[in-house]
């Protein structure tokens, strides 16, 4: 398996980085933690932007930094996208896009500008002056530019933090498309749990310059005590394949006998979900608060999604009860209900129930 070996022990006045770990170098890895936890420093260590003495960075079999040897960033083939102002303002949008591409020997180019322009829908952006682009457009252009430089790894440092929530919602599907189409691994830094839930395959939790925990995203989300949920709602993921839009404009997502319907106009770019020719793989985020439980299917109710499930576990969470359910396809779903409701329905582990989810609250 492709991997990234990291080791550093670095003390500074009011900061330290103490890392000894191996990260997966495939799919999307999120470095999550509050500001000042060292996640950006870790990213800069990987990129070779800070010269941290006696650190080790080994990407697959390439020794980027070991002992005295140090390969500078421009020879590491790492794509970088920062929070903002990533574009070079003295160049046009087109020149920005091709800056890295022109520096890759023709024989090594894996992507052509046309492909990237199509994938990230950059056509209209390329005709505009750089300083007139919106934050989201700038980030998309910066992503495209990074991709065309033929990177082995993409590092994104809070790439969406400066975007308003609408632009953020619009750009996230592009990242997924990018990974599924190019297979370039991504490591991104974030302090926004929604972003992480939507994108990450692997989660690394950082605090005080150290890695506290790392796991795949499903395992991480199954833990209600995870720092990911500090100040934000417990969320489960549902993975499935997108189906065709029905006459009502609803999007179905299928997984082994389960089907979840999304209302039209929910946070998806519909063409992205529906026409993704590669895999059609879709990830849905479902807040535990948005899941209700019933003992049997209810025909006379507006709620569109009624999924048979089995109770795995009941546990108190804050002042409510968190119910962990197993769906027919084996995926886990969390429901947050009041203790009163749990008592009235006499919920017990092992019981079959029906999980009710409104089609328009799923993102």
């Amino acid at each position: 398996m492709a991997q990234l070996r990291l080791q550093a022990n670095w003390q500074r006045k009011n900061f330290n980085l103490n890392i000894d770990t191996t990260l997966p170098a495939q799919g999307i890895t999120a470095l999550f933690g509050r500001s000042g936890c060292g996640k950006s420093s870790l990213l800069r260590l990987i990129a070779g932007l800070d010269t941290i003495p006696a650190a080790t960075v080994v990407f697959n079999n390439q020794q980027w930094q070991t002992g005295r040897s140090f390969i500078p960033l421009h020879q590491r083939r790492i794509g970088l996208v920062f929070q903002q102002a990533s574009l070079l303002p003295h160049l046009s949008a087109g020149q920005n896009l091709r800056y890295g591409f022109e520096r890759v020997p023709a024989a090594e180019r894996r992507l052509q500008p046309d492909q990237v322009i199509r994938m990230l829908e950059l056509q209209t952006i390329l005709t505009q002056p750089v300083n007139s682009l919106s934050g989201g457009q700038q980030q998309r252009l910066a992503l495209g530019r990074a991709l065309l430089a033929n990177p082995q790894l993409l590092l994104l440092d809070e790439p969406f933090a400066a975007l308003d929530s609408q632009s953020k919602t619009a750009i996230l599907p592009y990242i997924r498309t990018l990974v599924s189409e190019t297979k370039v691994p991504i490591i991104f830094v974030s302090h926004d749990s929604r972003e992480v839930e939507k994108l990450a395959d692997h989660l690394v939790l950082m605090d005080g310059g150290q890695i506290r925990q790392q796991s795949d995203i499903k395992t991480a989300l199954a833990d209600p005590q995870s720092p990911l949920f500090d100040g934000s709602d417990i969320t489960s993921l549902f993975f499935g394949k997108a189906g065709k839009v029905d006459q009502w404009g609803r999007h179905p997502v299928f997984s082994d006998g389960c089907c979840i319907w999304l209302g039209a106009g929910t946070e998806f770019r519909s063409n992205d979900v529906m026409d993704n020719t590669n895999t059609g793989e879709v990830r849905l985020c479902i807040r535990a608060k948005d899941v209700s439980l019933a003992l049997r299917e209810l025909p006379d109710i507006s709620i569109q999604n009624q999924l048979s499930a089995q109770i795995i576990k009941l546990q108190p969470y804050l002042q409510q009860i968190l119910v962990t359910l197993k769906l027919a396809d084996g995926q886990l779903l969390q429901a947050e209900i009041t203790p009163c409701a749990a008592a009235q329905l006499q919920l017990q582990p092992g019981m079959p129930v029906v999980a009710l989810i409104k089609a328009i609250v799923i993102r």
Partner: protein
Amino acid sequence: MTTVDMVGSATSALGAADWQAIQLTLTLAFYTMLLLLLIATPLAWWLSATPHRDSRRGYWLRTTVQTLVALPLVLPPTVLGFYLLLLLGPQGMVGSTLQQLGLPHLAFSFGGILFASVLYSLPFAVQPLQQAFEQLGRQPVEIAASLGAGPIDRFFSVVLPMCKGGYIVAATLSFAHTLGEFGVILMLGGSIPGQTKVLSIVIYDHAEAMNYAAAQQLSLMLLLFSFAVLFVVYSVRRKIGGG
């Protein structure tokens, strides 16, 4: 010499020696500017590094160098000239070493005043560049590196175009400041025609000799030229800022 003589006689008060001094001064200023841009670029870049991650040693080193660079701003030029005379003269550390290598020592020579001018005008090149680099920040360069651009490539494709204003200001200021140099050269140069006798010294000599017409003409030329140079600097600053 003949063309110089002709021009000289056409403008009355100025003689061949004056024109020689003007030519020497312009040559000196030009080479000083050129050398300064070469030296000041890496120096200003190093000084503009973000201090918050600096180690204690780095902090002291940077502060010391920053202070040394600014010293010519406050030091009497004669002090600078005096130390250079000691250093570069036949008995000095640099001068004697040069002589041992079979080379001439640097006091009372063009090479000597060029060296002095570079030191003397150093802050006028370093400070505008440093300011431009600080405004630029490291991010554009880091991005260029991630896109496969090596150090030289990054300088020409990112730093130079984005810090154009800083370079124009640094070049004009170091050029203009060298034109007005007096004290350092007086101490170190020794007023050798065609070698070290620059405009400001010629003006001083004219004034001493009560040759006011020539002194006035040269002074006026220097005044107008300096005005023009500073005008360029400030209009560039206004237009594209320090960076």
